């Protein structure tokens, strides 16, 4: 399937808006969209929502023989997939440029930065090591997949627990989660990617571009950093020329953003840990808001009552006194009385003129005797 093409007028509009420092969703130049991190029931499963972009990260482990060149180190394997449900432009089994770029950036960000201690993953040197596999699936594409994918990957790795092992000589016993508590991975630091999109030959930049903005961008700069202000990787694509101070400015902005995001991840991990310890319910089903309308339950809304008396008195003094209402009923016919004036009747059927002497009749000439309504005294009086 093809994605909706971007029309020329949209492109012009977006670029003109960027020149005036305005974005389509009302954000400022350096603002991120709302980030929401939720964990699943299994350890190592995490969904990150960056605005409308949704990414799922899943970590799993397996005991395998190590690589020959590194017999004492565990193996890390990263895989990112663009699901066709994310965007009509993604087709299954197609190696697009975007996919290759995202995979390589994710690998560089997590593997080369040595954020995970691979030596601790060794079980029996030269024979058995843990292979940690991180799978990232893109569920919805609304721009800035790289950031969301890196947040999902590092949150899933921090959340993951691997089974405990005991070694006796050459025998390895792997304990199930029921026998012994699983152990978290040893993570040194959390590298997070921050994307900067450049427009109009590098004169304007935006942080966290959404999908429309990504389509009109000239170039992209991705900086992977951790909260200790260490740059893990920088990648610039699109072939635009950047000045030195532009890159330095971006790295300063990135450090601020990364510290905010790291705090968010830690808070989410802490919440999840607390809920699991207390025995409460955890998982995706709990983190999605339930949209229910119940008629029996009503939320009590607090109402500000401090100056109600004064405001009410003011209103009463200001308004004119209402006209005297006629209160005595007028007897129209046997068993029928009328209080006050009636309004135009909106019923479709013709009615007998007797019943409504005050109100105008909708069809004056075509009263059909078969459709007359007679009001009997047992029925309640018509009151308007």
């Amino acid at each position: 399937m093809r994605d909706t093409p971007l029309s020329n007028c949209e492109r012009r509009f977006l670029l003109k808006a960027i020149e005036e420092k305005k974005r389509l969703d009302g954000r400022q130049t350096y603002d991120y969209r709302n980030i929401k991190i939720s964990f699943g029931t299994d350890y190592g499963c995490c969904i990150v929502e960056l605005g409308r972009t949704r990414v799922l990260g899943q970590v799993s482990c397996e005991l395998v023989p190590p690589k020959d060149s590194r017999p004492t180190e565990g193996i890390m394997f990263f895989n990112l997939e663009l699901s066709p449900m994310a965007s009509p432009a993604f087709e299954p089994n197609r190696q697009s440029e975007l996919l290759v770029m995202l995979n390589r950036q994710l690998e560089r960000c997590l593997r080369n930065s040595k954020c995970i201690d691979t030596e601790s993953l060794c079980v029996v040197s030269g024979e058995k090591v843990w292979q940690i596999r991180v799978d990232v699936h893109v569920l919805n594409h609304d721009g800035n997949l790289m950031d969301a994918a890196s947040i999902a990957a590092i949150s899933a790795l921090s959340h993951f627990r691997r089974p405990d092992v005991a070694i006796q000589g050459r025998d390895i016993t792997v304990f199930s989660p029921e026998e012994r508590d699983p152990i978290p991975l040893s993570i040194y630091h959390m590298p997070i990617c921050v994307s900067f999109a450049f427009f109009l030959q590098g004169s304007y930049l935006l942080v966290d571009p959404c999908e429309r903005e990504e389509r009109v961008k000239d170039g992209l700069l991705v900086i992977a950093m951790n909260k200790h202000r260490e740059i893990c990787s920088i990648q610039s694509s699109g072939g635009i020329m950047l000045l030195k101070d532009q890159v330095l400015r971006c790295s300063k902005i990135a450090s601020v953003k990364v510290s905010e995001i790291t705090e968010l991840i830690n808070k989410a991990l802490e919440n999840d840990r607390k809920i699991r310890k207390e025995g409460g319910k955890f998982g995706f089903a709990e983190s999605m808001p339930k949209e229910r309308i119940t008629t029996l339950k009503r939320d009590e809304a607090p109402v500000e009552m401090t100056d109600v008396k004064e405001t009410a008195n003011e209103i009463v003094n200001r308004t004119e006194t209402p006209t005297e209402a006629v209160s005595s009923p007028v007897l129209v016919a046997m068993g029928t009385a009328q209080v006050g004036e009636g309004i135009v009747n909106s019923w479709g059927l013709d009615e007998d003129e007797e019943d409504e002497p005050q109100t105008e009749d909708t069809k004056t000439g075509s009263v059909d005797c078969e459709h007359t309504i007679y009001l009997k005294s047992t029925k309640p009086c018509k009151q308007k």
Partner: protein
Amino acid sequence: MDTVHACFEEKIGEVLLPGDVFSFRLPESGDGSIKTGPGLRRNGEEVQVYKSGILRHKQPNMYWIDSQQRRVRVLDSHHVIGIVTAKSGDIFKVDVGGSEQASLSYLAFEGATKRNRPNVQVGDLVYGQFTIANKDMEPKLVCIDSCGRANGMGVFGADGLLFKLSLGLMRRLLAPQSEIAKDLEKIFPFELVVGMNGRVWSCENMTSQQRQTLFKRVAEGSL
């Protein structure tokens, strides 16, 4: 009095569910025919409802069900906004939001001849009308009406923004006495093009001064 209309009249403005049935008998005079719109289906002597919604009526004898749906159903002679994606030989390929791209011949513009080609580039917006729009054939757009006049159709949109709307809102905008359009007119002058495929293009010619004052008013909530 027509028993046909009586049955329907009771239910105008009421919510109907699929499966509701009206039975009618065509009167002998012959002018008691009914036109059924979307949501109603004739089944022999009966008219069945197959979509849930509110029954609407338009004089003299048109009835249809007003329902909410997200899938755009475009028929012949619907006006839509399309984006030109490719120029190949004599025709333009236009994306109208469907699974197939529509074809628009370059001769289907007002005043276009073989020598005098219209000035249409890839990525331009066109407002056109369908001549073929069924599920078995490639859809075909034209930008002239049956007399050969443009009638508002053609390439447009040098400025402004194209965005998508829900179908219900789009129908309310296109209604003859649309209150939404009237309210918007009072606030600021603008041009609006509404396509039946849920796309809307809008443009306003205001100086940035006027725009700033308008934003201030909106921020104060005085609108």
